[in-house]
């Protein structure tokens, strides 16, 4: 193995430098969330001289954080579930069937990943308004509108990655299933999906993180009824004060579920990315 002295020095340097780069902001976030307001407004100190947990209590009152939390959770979970299901079906089609328009589909879907959000932000808004006027279905200012929007954000990447993943699963497996009397959907359900579990998990994580962290569309498409955390957090700077300690506390709390989820499933994410991207 490559445990020469040179490599060990190199590794130590990389670990220290990058470790600090990663850790310092996290440290600042955590410690500042436990300082009183007057301390975060004054000169920075590495160690909080007055430790307090008040920001974690006050933050729920300064803005309706709990409501935003619920909104973000519902929107992200629903967007993830639908996005993954739709991506599985589409990826299965792309991976297992030859059909007219396959190339057009793949190219178009993948290229939508390239669209700058600002280009279709206002048009999408207008379209939602029109749908509402002609069908009565309320999409602006509702969680449903956000779910539909967000699930498509992760769709192209998910389809592409899952198709790559499905490609890596030997066709002999689903053919065996067909012989056993399953239809193609049965083969997908009983053979391909179980084998592709890491890929599916990876795609789900990606979708969830996309929805949880989206800012641009949330800034225009949300009202008080469906406001998500990404824009809700801005409200800690009010007309009278910027509550930095509460901002840090809230940022910490809203990050914990995604970070833990991601870290727990990171192995699958890595495996999924590998299968989708490598080859």
């Amino acid at each position, binding site marked *: 193995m490559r445990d020469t002295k040179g490599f060990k020095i190199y590794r130590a340097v990389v670990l220290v430098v990058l470790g600090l780069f990663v850790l310092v902001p996290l440290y600042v976030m955590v410690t500042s969330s436990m300082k009183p307001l007057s301390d975060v407004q004054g000169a920075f100190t590495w160690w909080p001289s007055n430790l307090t947990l008040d920001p974690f209590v006050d933050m729920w009152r300064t803005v309706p954080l709990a409501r935003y939390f619920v909104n973000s959770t519902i929107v992200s979970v629903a967007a993830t579930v639908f996005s993954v299901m739709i991506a599985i079906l589409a990826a299965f089609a792309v991976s297992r069937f030859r059909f007219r328009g396959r190339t057009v589909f793949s190219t178009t879907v993948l290229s939508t990943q390239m669209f700058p959000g600002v280009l279709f932000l206002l048009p999408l808004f207008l379209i939602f*308004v029109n749908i509402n006027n002609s069908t009565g279905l*309320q999409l602006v200012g509702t969680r449903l509108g956000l779910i539909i929007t967000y699930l498509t954000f992760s769709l192209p990447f998910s389809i592409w990655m899952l198709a790559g993943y499905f490609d890596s699963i030997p066709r002999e497996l689903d053919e065996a299933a067909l012989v056993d009397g399953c239809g193609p959907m049965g083969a997908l359900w009983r053979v391909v999906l179980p084998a592709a579990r890491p890929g599916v998990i990876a795609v789900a994580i990606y979708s969830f993180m996309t929805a949880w962290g989206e800012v641009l569309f949330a800034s225009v498409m949300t009202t008080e009824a469906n406001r998500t955390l990404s824009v809700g957090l801005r409200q800690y700077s*009010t007309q009278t004060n910027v509550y930095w300690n509460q901002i840090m506390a809230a940022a910490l709390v809203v990050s914990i579920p995604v970070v833990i989820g991601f870290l727990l499933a990171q192995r699958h994410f890595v495996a999924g990315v590998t299968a989708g991207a490598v080859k």
Partner: protein
Amino acid sequence: MRLRSLVAAAAVSALGISLAACGGSDSGDSSGGNGGGDATLTYWASNQGTSLDNDKQVLTPVLEKFTQETGVKVNLEVIGWNDLQTRIQTAITSGQAPDVVNIGNTWAASLQATEAFLPFDGEAMDAIGGKDKFVPTALATGGKEGTDPTSVPLYGLAYGLYYNKAMFQQAGLQPPKTWEEMVAAAKKLTNPAKNQWGMALAAGSYTENVHFAFINAAQNKSEWFDADGKPTFTSDGNVQGVLRYLDLMQKDKVANPSNAQYDNGTKAVNDFATKKVAMVINQNNANSSIVANGMKPGEYGVVPFPAPAGGEQVASHVAGINLSIFKNTKNKDAALKFVKYMTDAPTQTTLGKPFASLPVLKDAKPAFTSDAAEAAIFSDIYNTKSKPLPLVPAEDQYESTVGKAMNAMFAKIATGGTVTADEVKAALKTAEDQVAASS
């Protein structure tokens, strides 16, 4: 429209799929505001208090009283300033609007140009109590000159120069009456070594900056738009006015360069309240912040923001919040009743204190402070020493282009550069071109 039905069809089929599995998770959200004939009003209020929640607490009993009196229910949503403009834009674009909305009064002429708002013509004006009840300068902000306003004043605000009494006394200074006295006092109270500064400026906030560009230019008797609504940004009076304000940091060095990244007035007020600076120019709703940050009411005094010797006595723009009704409201009568209620004397008195606003009504007494002298000074500024920002449709662009040009110039000064009169003129020329290009 073809597109419309195509889109609708696509949406419906897409939704069929998702709704099937979605259960009822979204059913509770349909807005109860803009439909229905049972006279429920949707009202978007701007953030005036210490937090959105605070606003809600202040407004709820006021709105309940309105419901008792009229039977009209009010659906309240409080919107932060970061979001308000975008929300109003999308409401205008979509037609999915509340019935009544608070707007920053400086946007009034710009919003009027969208034709999305109900003009307060003779009849509508009578329904809300007649135009004679308002302070004339306040009502003048309601829309373009010579038209029926599309908004009426709700909360009045005015700039004042807050000073720290103890610091002035110690230095043997009197509150300034002219610009020159103000600068001299500020210089005397500045000691960078001790991190002590004469003034704090919200020099990184484009909205604050443009207000001072306007006020300083007005003190030079200079206008930003001609009678036809064409921008005249580069006139000498404007350039000199802008430069005079920039010089507080650049030449006079009485403001901490850090101020260049103060992107809202709050930070400057905090510096004043925590006694790091001797003076701050802020609107009268600073009081609650000052007290919240530890300064006692008796420790500060207020005088009008002074003009240079020989200049025009303009101490503020006519600041504040106006109230507008969306034209497509289905509850016009109820909305008018509501506007009348909000702008009548009892409500003005009730809300004047928690929101630290000046009454927009003639002869009304300010309730935001118990200090009679302070109340009198702000009333005087608001009623006699303020001038409305340009009442033209391009006002919003004026704010963003000139304000941002000032942000950039302050940033240059703070990071060690200098800004000459020629550079100010060039920056204002760029701003003028931008306004011209998109009007």
